[in-house]
């Protein structure tokens, strides 16, 4: 999985890092080759203390890195994917789902928690790219809708940490329909006046970007993410265009007005806490 590495703040580099297994106490950084103690890594927002490379984050690790310790309550609905098309490519879809479940410990590509960030309650949905590329199928769509409905009910801001390669191809048009579905409930969130903050992490692309992820009140991009609708290969094949070197980087997105701020991973929690503190008028003496 290619992720971003910030070497002396000037060189930009993607490196392959194997997703970690929960039982490993020590992890080897694929960028500099050093062994890092997992606990230390967690304290350092999963950034290699030796070379600054960003380790890939599971949904669980991402949640832990963002919320106030001990505040998270898992509210992911107990839903699993059907196989409406009886889809078989090199593998049957149900098998892919089961494998991803085993690998990630998740039911599908998103985890939802109620938690606090800097003392401010939120409904937090975190997508996991390890689960079939973070693709949005029926379960992801439903989880996001349920999360937003929960945010409306509790009047807590909705925070989405996006990480997705796009639609869940194996569910066909039903997967495509998760775009209007999530947008519809985002409209309800807006009508209720509940804030929605999106965080784009590696990668935020395709149908997720072209629906729910692009419609936040406030949009942060984690440093090193990829943000774009179409894949670079598709673009090069279709248009024969030469892609600029910063194409679909977070800097490209910022330069083109697509995101409000680019945030280094280690600052993300504080940045969210600061925004939530401003919005939380009722608490701070309003």
């Amino acid at each position, binding site marked *: 999985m290619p992720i971003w590495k910030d070497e002396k703040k000037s060189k930009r580099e993607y490196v392959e890092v194997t997703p970690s297994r929960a039982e490993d106490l020590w992890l080897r950084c694929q960028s500099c080759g050093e062994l890092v103690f997992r606990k230390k890594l967690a304290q350092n927002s999963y950034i290699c203390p030796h070379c600054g490379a960003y380790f890939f984050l599971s949904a669980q690790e991402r949640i832990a890195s963002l919320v106030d310790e001990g505040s998270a309550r898992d509210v992911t609905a*107990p839903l699993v994917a059907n196989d409406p098309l009886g889809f078989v490519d090199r593998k049957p879809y149900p098998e892919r789902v089961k494998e991803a479940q085993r690998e990630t410990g998740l039911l599908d590509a998103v985890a939802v928690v109620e938690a606090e960030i800097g003392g401010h309650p939120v409904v937090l949905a975190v997508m996991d790219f390890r689960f079939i590329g973070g693709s949005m199928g029926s379960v992801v769509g439903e989880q996001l809708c349920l999360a937003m409905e929960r945010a409306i009910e509790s009047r807590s801001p909705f925070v989405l940490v996006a990480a997705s390669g796009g639609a869940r191809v194996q569910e066909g048009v*039903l997967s*495509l329909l998760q*775009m209007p*579905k999530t947008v519809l409930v*985002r409209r309800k969130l807006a009508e209720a006046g509940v804030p929605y903050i999106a965080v784009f992490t590696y990668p935020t692309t395709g149908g997720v970007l072209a629906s729910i992820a692009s*419609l936040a009140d406030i949009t942060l991009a984690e440093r090193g993410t990829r943000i774009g609708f179409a894949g670079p290969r598709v673009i090069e094949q279709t*248009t024969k265009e030469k892609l600029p070197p910063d*194409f679909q980087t977070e800097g490209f997105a910022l330069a083109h007005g697509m995101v409000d701020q680019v945030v280094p991973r280690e600052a993300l929690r504080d940045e969210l806490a600061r925004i939530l503190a401003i919005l939380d008028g009722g608490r701070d003496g309003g």
Partner: protein
Amino acid sequence: MVDEATLKALEEKVTELRRLVEQDGLALDDELALLERRLEELRREYFAKLSDWDRVKLARDPRRPTGIELVEQVFDDFYELRGDRLLRDDPALRGGLAKLSGKPLVVLFHQKGKTLEEQKRYRFGMAGPAGYRKAVRLMELAGRLRLPLVSLVDTPGAYPGVEAESHNIAGTIAQCLQTMLGLPVPTVAVIVGEGGSGGAVAIACADRVLMLEYAIYSVISPEGAAAILWKDQKAAPKAAEALGLSAPKLKDLGIIDEVLPEPLGGAHSDPQATAATVRTALERHLSELSSLPLDKLLSLRYKRYRHAGSYRELEGRP
């Protein structure tokens, strides 16, 4: 078994012969009648065992009536509105005012070309940010003037390119979805050719979604799915089958409301008849939707999209 090439060759021969008879007055009526009978037989045979890959090729056939050809035949008048009021006018996604059964409405449609030159001008029906921004503008116009919205969908997908990404094509499609889903007027989408991915659903999230018989609607192109999932370009026919992109299949899944029958040989073999079918269906669905009170219309729309998807409750953690 009849293959596509044989059929196409015969179709071309018949067309040519008909021209000779009709325009040049050649006395070939007997030969023509014979060939026409043979063509009909072949067509029946071919269309009886249509594979999904055949459907993909039919849906993309450049002889198929394009957006503007349908619009001009389906509606009583059409006045084109151009431009997104910011970037430019995108010829791949067009729209304007139109009239049906004496009532005004707003129509949006993808535009493909027939000749290579046209295809280039319309970018093969792939619209960019300006196109989807124009769509948002015309949707808002429809909402403001309380005019129903009709969309005719025929695109391989949104245009992928540096300029499109620089102008936030993804965010613009999201805006389209958001606007269309909130319109206080009836909306009907007809997938008339290719319904390709995000670029299609952006203007297809309607109260009613209809499909021409040989149109396709898919989350990804079969070629794309073949490359990504099968790691094999030649797996496209297999992918087409797996993706469930045909109109009958999508009707079975409850994703679309109605399959609009095409003439034998496909829409291009009788564009007038095809347009008449679309027209009649639009009249019926618009009349049904227009009779609903606004809150009912909106709650039905809400239900339709809120419950889209297929999943089940967990019976025991995996």
